[in-house]
């Protein structure tokens, strides 16, 4: 049977249901366990093989040698596409995906993040993995 206003029952029911949407900046839905968010780098694990640099599709990561067996990474979040190929390519698990997804900044220069064993040079010490 054809009749107009077929959705009326469902629509009235949802008047008494909890809204499906959230008031976003105040309430957030949780990220899944293996979310591919911001990439962080553990300098102590890096062996400087440059595999991540080679495989990055958007050339967002740079690994520099600071001292013998000490490396620092510069990740450009403006370029990063969060594919986590670098995490997969790394033989020593020195790179890791986090659940961090709110990465917008007002200052473009803050998108370049340096992870270094030297805490003075590291620009991302306040963020937790």
């Amino acid at each position: 049977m054809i009749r107009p206003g077929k959705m009326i029952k469902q629509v009235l029911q949802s008047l008494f249901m909890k809204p499906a949407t959230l008031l976003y900046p105040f309430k957030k839905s949780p990220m899944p366990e293996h979310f591919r968010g911001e990439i962080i780098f553990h300098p102590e694990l890096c062996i400087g093989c440059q595999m991540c640099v080679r495989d990055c599709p958007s050339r967002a990561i740079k690994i520099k040698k600071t001292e013998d067996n000490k490396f620092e990474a510069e990740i450009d979040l403006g370029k990063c596409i969060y594919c986590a190929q670098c995490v997969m390519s790394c033989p020593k698990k020195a790179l890791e995906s986090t659940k961090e997804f709110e990465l917008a900044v007002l200052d473009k220069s803050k998108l370049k993040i340096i992870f270094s064993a030297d805490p003075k040079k590291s620009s991302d010490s306040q963020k937790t993995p």
Partner: protein
Amino acid sequence: MLTDLFHIVIFPGFLFLCASGMTAEYIDRKLYARLQNRMGPPWFQPFADFMKLVSKEDIVPDEANPSMFRAMPIFALTASITAIFYIPLWHVNALYHFNGDLIVTIYLLTIPTLTYFLGGWYSTSLYSKIGAVRSLTQLFAYEVPLLMCILAPALLANTWSLSEMAAFYTNHKWYWAFNMIGFVVSIIALLGKLEKVPFDIPEAETEIVAGTFTEYSGRLLAIFRLSLNIEAITGASLIAAVYLPFGLELPTAAGFAVYLAKLLFIIAIMSLSRTVFARFRMDQMVEFCWKYVSPFAFLQILICLIIKGVWVR
């Protein structure tokens, strides 16, 4: 003189209508959202939107006729505010009344649609023009059933004055029950007048951007939107006065509460119908109005004539 000024500017004139119009918009949007299982806007959203638009620059297109383009929003606002003075709101008597104010009110409520047409036409944008022509085409479809079905209760009450009609229905309790077909028809017509889904054809955003209002911005758009909100209140008040004429003999405070409840009821019905229907196409809308709505309006007149002939005598 001072009381007249008070009536016009503050209550139930401009300020009261602005406030109630924005509240109506909020209730409509919130209800629409809740019916769609969404959160909906906070209570100050219509006011915030209005303030944002007011603080923005007016842009008049080079091709447009600047005087007509600027004048039309004001005309729309004035007409929809003026209409409220002849409608009995929470008392049997409206603020101003004379025999024939029913026709004046309906006429005043038609002016906003004409201003949408003229405003759209003189914007000279293609989308506006198509929207303008559509709102005029739509006017011919819903205006006739609206007039007919508002005429029917007037025939039964044997007067052309809204206030006298209200008095008649207050004295003859339960007569309003004969006019229920007219109530439904006039709600449909009001949806068309306010250009809401399923009759938002002149503003169909996926086809012609914003229709008439495509070129409008800043204060002029704010006034247009305000006039639409106020038109919703005046239209709903008219329907409430004609079809739901109860509670008018109550003391002022109680009568006012009943009046607000009636408005809320009509606004809720409009939100619901905006939720459960898809937009009509122009030809379907005209066909629907002439084939189904008008005969019902006619039936309403017949019912009233028969009742008048058989019962009231």
